[in-house]
């Protein structure tokens, strides 16, 4: 019997199965993991009227090629990769009808680095520890639960869908990943780990994204910030936290971060801005500004409500 779903012809640089992550195993050290850019991920599922947490692909840098073995509907969001179906271009931030036998190809990203591909009804993948999110380092999640990125020959099961209703994200909601970045920070006022003048350095200088960044943390380079302490007693880590290691170069913690950490924390980045940061290439420059916690929480609440979470 022919399989229903998609077959991976070329896996690309790094393509991962993702959802919103696993939350109930942090106490034993499992990262939450999950889509690095929740905004693009949630739009992909919303375009297809999927449940918000449906398994989708996170295509990092590009190079993915798939063959459809069933009629279905897909949605593409996130980084601009030239996407083609049988060599004909497909628009980003839209849903598209796919016929069995179609070949989908993703070229290398021109703007942004992560493209999301959702399919009507979601890819049918068994969650490990409550989530399909792929955490390669922890050998958890993904297609077979072992944390592997996609490889050639993998089958991505999904249900058939005949509908050809097309939906697109209104242009006012489409983020521009090339816009200059001013990142909002909720400052940690509760510790005495930084002198006011050292803390202010973050807001008065331009920083650059380092090539050493990965899915655990975005490493920055720029004016070094000297904490009063070399390390702290290890404590839980929060998404978007800005750690300052002894070399003074900030690290913004992302989805795959370790659950506990021992560097002083200067504050945390507004999650909407972390999602934008997850689309930036190395060497991109950014500046920081402050934001009150209450305002950040209100905006995030509005964001999640919009996506029905």
């Amino acid at each position, binding site marked *: 019997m022919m399989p229903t779903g998609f077959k991976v012809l070329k896996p690309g640089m790094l393509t991962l199965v993702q959802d919103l992550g696993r*939350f*109930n*195993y*942090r106490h034993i050290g499992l990262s939450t993991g999950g889509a690095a850019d929740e905004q693009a991920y949630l739009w992909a599922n919303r375009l297809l009227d999927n449940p918000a947490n449906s398994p989708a692909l996170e295509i990092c840098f590009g190079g993915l090629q798939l063959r459809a073995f069933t009629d279905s509907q897909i949605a593409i969001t996130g980084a601009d990769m030239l996407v083609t179906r049988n060599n004909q271009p497909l628009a980003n931030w839209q849903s598209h009808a796919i016929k069995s036998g179609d070949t989908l190809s993703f070229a290398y990203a021109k703007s942004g680095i992560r493209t999301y591909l959702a399919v009507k009804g979601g890819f049918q993948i068994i969650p490990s520890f409550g989530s399909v999110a792929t955490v390669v380092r922890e050998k958890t999640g993904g297609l077979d639960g072992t944390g592997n990125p996609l490889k050639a020959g993998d089958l991505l099961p999904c249900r058939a869908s005949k509908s050809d209703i097309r939906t697109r994200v209104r242009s006012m909601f489409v983020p521009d990943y090339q816009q200059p970045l001013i990142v909002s920070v*909720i400052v940690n006022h*509760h510790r005495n780990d930084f002198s006011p003048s050292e803390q202010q350095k973050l807001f008065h200088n331009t920083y650059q994204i380092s090539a050493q960044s990965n899915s655990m943390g975005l490493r920055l380079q720029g004016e070094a910030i000297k904490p009063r302490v070399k390390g702290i007693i290890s404590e*839980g880590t929060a998404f978007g936290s800005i750690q300052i290691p002894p070399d003074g170069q900030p690290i913004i913690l992302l989805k795959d971060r370790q659950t*506990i950490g021992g560097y002083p924390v200067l504050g945390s980045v*507004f999650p909407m801005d972390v999602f934008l940061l997850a689309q930036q290439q190395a060497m991109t420059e950014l500046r920081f500004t402050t934001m009150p916690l209450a305002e950040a929480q209100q905006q995030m*609440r509005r964001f999640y409500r919009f996506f029905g979470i």
Partner: protein
Amino acid sequence: MKAIWHIEPAGLDAVLIRFGEQIQLDLVPTITAASQCLQRALGQDIRGMVPSYTTLMLFYDLRKHDFASIQTLIERELTKLVIDNSVTGRLVEIPVWYDPAVGPDLQRVADYHQINIDEVIHRHTANTYQVFAIGFAPGFAYMGQVSQQLATPRLDRPRQRVSAGSVAIADQQTAVYPTETPGGWNILGRTPMPMLDRAHAELCPVKTGDRVQFKAISKQQFLEAEGVLS
């Protein structure tokens, strides 16, 4: 005894509840009791917790709470909490084959303290250890305190590859590497006991707040328990 704590925001959807400023054995039962109490009382409103040496990080559902409202709920529950220090966590016995074949730093630790390998093994198994925190990697339990007469600094150059099951010390802490990772701790031996068992509902044989007793076993016992040599 009443617990003393301080609550501060951490990130957008988390609070850090701080119970002390220094690593102390008696903070462990306090933090364990607090995490159990908050899980029971606020289970529907929270999205996981990370207990550590002096703190408990609690993640909450942003749809239901802001910082002020979750702080009020936490304070209400913790005010009622009475810690009984005589209640200790489970005692978990971890069998270890201590041998240079699987414990490449036994001699280094012996030399550091000018003792022989048997004395290293004796000192490591003489104490019970408290699980302070789990992190670094899934199932990696930080335990202490290793006695001053055994404590040894980390290696100057971490190993690229430490085998799963390796039992190690760094300064006054001890741990078992649950999976193969790079690592810089002094490796004394290896356990056949899986520290990360994906078939097991709780995943880990130990939790924060438990106590651990290492027990020396022979190579034969190690192999009979399906210990892995490579």
